[in-house]
């Protein structure tokens, strides 16, 4: 009688563990897909010399462009992360247009690390339209070869707070 009561509990727990493993694997797969393919993410290579020592240090800067098309750009948020070793963020600058000339918001913890979230908004009357450089990221690159970085424009909005489907790009800044 006692054994007959125990077995359903064990079966139930066993089924629960199976469900748990199944759901965990599904969630892990979903998260892996999210990490590997964030929507709107873009990978860019920063070229570098091959014939240098492993500890050779150089400095480059990448410009961040946002293309809002016909809309006026009032707010944007952008994420940068290097995908290779030897990339450290050492400085952040503002953009070309007066509305975004001041350095964007960022977490100072990003300095000397490989990931940063940049964001800015402007309540000015005159706002940029079309393709505009909104920020510049200064990088310290260590070692030979090109460095890969992933960027994503998280959000953009017009002056009335309406979200727009803008695009972004980055390019190595001219020295």
């Amino acid at each position, binding site marked *: 009688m006692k054994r007959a009561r125990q077995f359903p509990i064990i079966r139930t727990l066993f089924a629960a563990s199976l469900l748990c493993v199944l759901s965990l694997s599904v969630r892990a797969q979903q998260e892996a897909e999210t990490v590997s393919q964030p929507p709107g993410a873009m990978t860019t290579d920063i070229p570098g010399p091959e014939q240098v020592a492993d500890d050779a240090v150089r400095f480059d800067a990448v410009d961040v462009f946002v293309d809002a098309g016909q809309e006026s750009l009032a707010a944007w948020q952008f994420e940068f992360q290097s995908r290779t070793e030897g990339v450290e963020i050492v400085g952040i600058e503002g953009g070309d247009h007066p509305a975004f000339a001041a350095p964007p918001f960022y977490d100072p913890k990003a300095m000397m690390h490989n990931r940063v979230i940049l964001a800015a908004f402007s*309540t000015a009357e005159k706002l940029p339209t079309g393709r505009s450089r909104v920020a510049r990221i200064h990088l310290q690159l260590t070692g030979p070869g090109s460095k890969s970085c992933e960027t994503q424009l998280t959000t953009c909005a017009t002056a009335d707070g309406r979200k727009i489907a803008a695009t972004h790009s980055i390019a190595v800044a001219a020295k």
Partner: protein
Amino acid sequence: MNQFPPPDLPEDELPQELVAAIRAGQPPAISVPPDIDAAVLNSAGRHLSTVTVARPAGRHRLRWAVLSVGTVAAAMLLVTLLPRSPDMETNRSMARKSSADISASPVVAGLSVTADIADAGGFGADIDGSGTVDILDAFVLARSLSRPDHDVRWDQNGDGQVDDSDVQLVAMRAVML
């Protein structure tokens, strides 16, 4: 002591001949003398005290293992199936901030931003109700500064007024790693 009426026995309703016949058919009651009864009990007690129940050890361990795994799995299942809200993630990441993080945090426009963010406690930074705190929340808050109808819940630093310092706090939270 017995205040109750005698039970209504069925034999009272039966024919007396039948009752007598049934009673005659029963074997005589066997009475066991108390000393024999006690001796039997003592013998059984001695015997049972030496007997050990041989449990199948493997099955016992397996049962406990299955029970333990099942309990842990059920707990993990609960954690897995419970929905995660972005606010929860934000608050969790805020809670992870150590004192070292606080000391390394920024000063924007003369404001001790991190201390104020820590004081804000994570409530009310999602100004536009999108479920996440991003720069649009700071933008919406900044645009609202020109209007008199501020929502008092948008006061991020608890100074009793909604102003530019609150906008800075929301913006800093949006970019916080």
